[in-house]
């Protein structure tokens, strides 16, 4: 039972990370209509930036994460302007190829700056908390709490703020939104900025409990794609439900079966969903 609670806490923390990363991905898909295959690489970059701001620039942990989020949000605007805006009338295949190009560039850039080896980031908050006999590290509790707070803020942003409502409007009906005077270029930029800020926060939260490496985005990229496919591309509730269920399935499979089973669980879920119901549980967006 103690082990179960322990692993449940781990699963919830991992689920928080997955949700933050998956929501950014699903927002971009909902608004722009293509999957950002560089999402995993951007997560990796977010982790390295947090490491840089914390270790080399000597900022406090929270400030370091926020600084990384701001840098990635800015990068999102730049990418949207320089890469995806010029492609707006091209077939979606071209968008996806461009995101693959961005992915290779980012991985090579990080290898060049920080090397190909592993980096360890000290956890700024040590210690553990005893929950029903299980020991849960403070870092994991911070992850869970932060993820919930960020998700609530994001919901408020999407439902209440003009920019957020514009994003939702474009997701629901592009032509209609444009007709009522919503500026689609602006919405695309804001979406990219929010998406990349979210993935940077996810990376900054996970950095102290995982090793950093240029390849760390590869498996996360696939996991978040599995999540948004499970939940339905473009669906926010789908990303949240999918994020927590895949994280808990992964943690439980690796605890009670084997580590390899945890890794395989993601692929099994992904392949099963695609084979049985390719539009996902909450899928409403038509396949493109």
């Amino acid at each position, binding site marked *: 039972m103690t082990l179960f609670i322990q692993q449940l806490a781990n699963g919830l923390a991992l689920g928080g990370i997955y949700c933050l990363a998956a929501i950014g991905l699903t927002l971009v898909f909902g608004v*722009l209509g293509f*999957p950002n295959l560089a999402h995993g690489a951007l997560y990796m970059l977010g982790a390295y930036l947090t490491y840089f701001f914390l270790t080399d620039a000597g900022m406090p942990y929270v400030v370091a994460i926020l600084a990384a989020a701001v840098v990635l949000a800015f990068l999102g605007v730049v990418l949207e302007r320089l890469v995806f805006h010029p492609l707006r*009338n091209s*077939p979606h*295949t071209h968008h996806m*190829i461009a995101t693959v190009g961005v992915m290779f560039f980012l991985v*090579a850039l990080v290898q060049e700056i920080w090397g190909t080896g592993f980096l360890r980031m000290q956890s700024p908050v040590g210690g553990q908390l005893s929950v029903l006999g299980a020991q849960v590290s403070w870092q994991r509790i911070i992850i869970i709490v932060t993820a919930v707070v960020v998700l609530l803020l994001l919901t408020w942003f999407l439902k209440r703020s003009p920019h957020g409502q514009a994003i939702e409007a474009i997701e629901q009906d592009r032509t209609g939104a444009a007709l009522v005077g919503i500026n689609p270029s602006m919405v695309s930029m804001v979406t990219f900025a929010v998406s990349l800020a979210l993935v940077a926060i996810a990376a900054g939260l996970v950095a102290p409990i995982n090793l950093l490496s240029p390849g760390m985005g590869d498996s996360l990229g696939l996991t978040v794609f599995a999540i948004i496919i499970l939940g339905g591309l473009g669906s926010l509730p789908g990303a949240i439900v999918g994020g927590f269920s895949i994280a808990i399935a992964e943690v439980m499979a690796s605890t009670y079966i084997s580590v390899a089973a945890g890794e395989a669980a993601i692929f099994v879920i992904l392949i099963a969903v695609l084979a049985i119901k390719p539009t996902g549980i909450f899928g409403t967006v038509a*396949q*493109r």
Partner: protein
Amino acid sequence: MIDRLNPRLLGVALVAIAMLLAPVVFSEQQYLLRVVTTAAIYAIAAYGLNIILGLTGQLSLAHGAFFGVGAYTVGLLTTDRDWPFWSAFLVAIAATTVLGYVSGLIALRTQGAYFAIFTMALGFLIFIVIVRWESLTHAHSGVSGVKFPENIGPIDFTEPAVMYYFVLIFLAAAAYTTHALLNSNAGRSLVAIRTSEDLAKSIGVNVAVSKQLAFTASATIAGLAGGLFASLNGFIGPDSAGIDRTFEMLLFLLIGGLGTVMGPLLGSLLVAFLFEMLQDLETYRFIVLGPIIVLLVIFAPRGMIGYLNDLVPARFKRRATTMPGDPATVPVASPTKSEVH
């Protein structure tokens, strides 16, 4: 007289003659001949990807892995099992065909973004299997001592020129297959699917069967190229099966021209020499190539062949073979639609 000569045919003939003469030109520079042979092998793989991406319009990110499966089949059978190259090569072709067929059964239930994500996951899964299944694949230490094709009578494949011509036969076959597809009903069905699946369905194209055949054939060709690569190179590691391979094939296709007959070949040759020049900058390579691929899809989505085509007088042009991104195939967007995003 020169006026009546089809410039397109002339171009193909010149490239063919240049390819045939390569061993004569490079007879004193064995190293360069090897570079061209390797480029020709990559070109074969690019022709494979061209069928599913260039003709059918489905972005497959698993083709590097199919290449790797072909390479590992030849590599492992000729070393650990001590098979002759020829039978291992046949098994490699059969294995990638079966793998392509079976994964196509699931992958082709999806379209567009879902298809790209699924194939990316499939490619990653195959890569993970190669890295983790150490007792079979030797994981990171890779497979060394892969056999060359055994002599057939007096034909000695250790002779670089012989190996080159051996590869050239498959390259010509791949290019010819593409040419034949573009001029047959089967190929036109694929191009119709690229333009619009619903439209293709409504005019009676059997979309499911066409896509399944295209995907299987493209996997087979990629696997065949992998088998040739393992033999020529003598060593293969997990990198041979990674997504980097897929990315390189994409680069060849984009530079040469998606969905064209000569594009994959010209793109591969050009990039092969570019890679040679960038070899000193091993890690910088992708810092340069990433932006190149982005610039290509934005500014030159039709590749070299697209621009060469513009030089061909209008009366020689065919209608059915325009490429994706070609202004002629992109539907004119309504003002509101083009404004969105």
